[in-house]
């Protein structure tokens, strides 16, 4: 950003990040520049998250327990999964209101397909794949109506919201609750890794970020994207390591009666999808086209991008992540009941993405925003629960946090626009 170089480095001059001031001074300078120009990135939400954790750690007696910690991971996993899909939909500048009940459809399909003695009992893993495929297909149909017919996504998915709610109601009103007994399905939320395996996973997660940075440095040598501010790099790596190992250490500590707890599988599923979807958004042509369509659909069309195809694929993705999230929620209670989806799932998922800095107007935001937002909302609601705050106040406080985050973001965008021109 402070580079005096004219058109970027050419082959003869290896860019070792010299143009950017390095070290702590460079970090400070860059942070100040970003702050001034409203490019806040994920810093406010990370600060918020730390504040919330410290606050509840001091006030709630059973917040900082290992059992509550694994609970928290399980509770936020489904929301985070849905929020991942929301990120892509919002990047297009669209909205998907059907995901809450689509998650219910995913759970319903999986429950139905694993039902012993139903005549169509399937292996749990197969049942989950089919359920996710069904949700993706539904997303595809809704996306096609948006992309090819031109009905606004708000209306199409509002229709979906009602339709899938109705389907769930029809199926469960008579039968009440479908119990899920399949081991594999229930594992998605309840399986806990052994202590050693947990630490191994933490190690892998910790190593991935530096690896990706080094890969970029080697593969993209001599380009601006290969430049690294080593102080920021060190801070980030340390932060990821602390979060990963800290989570595993606390989770490993837990004990319910005689059963020792450990890192829950749901947490690992979320991290795996986070990495996969970040890769999809940032490193593939599909991801680039999603950003392009969200930024300027007309420009994307003229550049030869098949805009309807991108729209349909994104709604399919959103349906699929909703289905996965629904399975995780169902596995949490080992059943599907009329109370599904739990709480304000749809609104929590959208709020998570928006708190994470994803713009409602398209083209701006990252997958990590959904994860950070889901963690913040999850921690907030869990912490307030452990403080025995009433549900009414939990909604009010979540709403205020959402409002605050979006207001901050809007001001940031205005600053960006002002500094840009």
């Amino acid at each position: 950003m402070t580079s005096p170089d004219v058109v970027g480095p050419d082959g003869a001059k290896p860019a070792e990040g010299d143009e950017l001031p390095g070290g702590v001074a460079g970090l400070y300078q860059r942070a100040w520049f970003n702050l001034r120009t409203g490019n806040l990135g994920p810093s406010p939400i990370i600060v918020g998250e730390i504040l919330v954790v410290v606050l509840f750690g001091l006030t709630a007696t059973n917040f900082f327990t290992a059992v509550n910690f694994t609970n928290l991971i399980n509770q936020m996993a489904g929301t985070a999964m849905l929020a991942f899909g929301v990120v892509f939909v919002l990047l297009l500048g669209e909205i998907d209101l059907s995901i809450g009940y689509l998650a219910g459809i995913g759970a319903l399909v999986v429950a139905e397909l694993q039902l012993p003695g139903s005549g169509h009992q399937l292996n749990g893993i197969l049942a989950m794949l089919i359920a996710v495929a069904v949700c993706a297909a539904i997303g595809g149909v809704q996306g096609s109506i948006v992309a090819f017919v031109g009905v606004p996504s708000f209306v199409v998915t509002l229709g979906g919201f009602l339709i899938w709610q109705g389907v769930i109601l029809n199926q469960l009103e008579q039968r009440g609750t479908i119990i899920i007994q399949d081991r594999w399905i229930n594992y998605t939320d309840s399986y806990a890794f052994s202590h050693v395996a947990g630490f191994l996973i933490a190690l892998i997660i910790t190593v991935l970020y530096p690896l990706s940075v080094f890969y970029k440095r080697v593969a993209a040598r001599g380009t601006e994207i290969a430049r690294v501010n080593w102080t920021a790099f060190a801070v980030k790596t340390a932060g990821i390591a602390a979060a990963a190992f800290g989570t595993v250490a606390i989770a490993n500590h837990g004990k319910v009666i005689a059963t020792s707890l450990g890192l829950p599988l749901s947490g690992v599923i979320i991290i795996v999808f986070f990495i996969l979807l970040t890769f999809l958004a940032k490193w593939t042509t599909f991801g680039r086209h999603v950003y392009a369509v969200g930024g300027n659909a007309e420009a994307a069309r003229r550049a030869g991008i098949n805009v309807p195809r991108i729209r349909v694929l994104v709604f399919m993705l959103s349906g699929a992540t909703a289905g996965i999230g629904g399975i995780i929620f169902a596995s949490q209670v080992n059943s599907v009941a009329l109370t599904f989806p739990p709480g304000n799932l749809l609104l929590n998922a959208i709020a998570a993405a928006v708190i994470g800095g994803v713009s409602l107007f398209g083209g701006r935001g990252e997958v990590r925003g959904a994860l950070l937002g889901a963690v913040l909302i999850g921690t907030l609601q869990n912490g307030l629960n452990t403080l025995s705050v009433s549900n009414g106040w939990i909604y009010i406080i979540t709403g205020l946090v959402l409002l605050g985050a979006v207001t901050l973001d809007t001001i940031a965008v205005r600053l960006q626009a002002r500094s840009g021109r």
Partner: protein
Amino acid sequence: MTMTDTPLLELRGITKTFGSVEALTDVDFEVRAGEVMALVGDNGAGKSTLIKCVAGTHAFDSGQILFEGREVSIHGPKDAARLGIEVVYQDLALCDNLDVVQNMYLGREANRFQILNEAAMEHTTASTLKGLAVTTISSIRQPVATLSGGQRQAVAVAKAVQWNSKLVILDEPTAALGVAQTEHVLALVRRLGEQGLAVVIISHNLHDIFETADRITVLRLGRTVGIFERQATTQQAVVEAITFGAPTKVSGIPAAPEVGGEG
């Protein structure tokens, strides 16, 4: 491109109607490689329609398009791109949220198995901009939203020439620019011509035209009313052609009988 006498692009007797409105009537037009051809005319003269016919956005009713001396048919923007024709529209068609490199490769990203090759894209973008002497963009990894109008125009032009294009059509490239930025863009346009590209520039601004163009084609009410050598004409003559010009033919095809062109 050695045969400088053969125009790179030649339009013969292009006619286009929208319902009962004749937007283009028997229009002839040509541009040679290494030449900047200006296309001027009052509002509604048919400049944009003519360009859209060349770009493949509009289908014309009758007439011929010759490219490098051969007759071609252009049915869509992809056909035009395949021939090496690129259009820079007035609204530039850039994605504000993407950076310069990402915009330059929009829709044609360098990839292997759908995985982006960012390094290759950045290197090529840097050298393309360098080749065009675009020196005002401090970082090619900054979002296009942070660029000035002139810089955005430069990116749009560079994007058009990056793909081994032979003909670049610029629609009002200086319409929204200040004085200094206009000079930058005009210099860029001249440089394109010097590099052997055929350039068509549409503009209302005669000052810009006389700064850049080698020849000037004037359209009036959907007809070609004159082709001027810049060196051998005056702004006065061009203005007269724009406002009062009578149809002329340049390609040796007999002129169509006139039906109330003036008035």
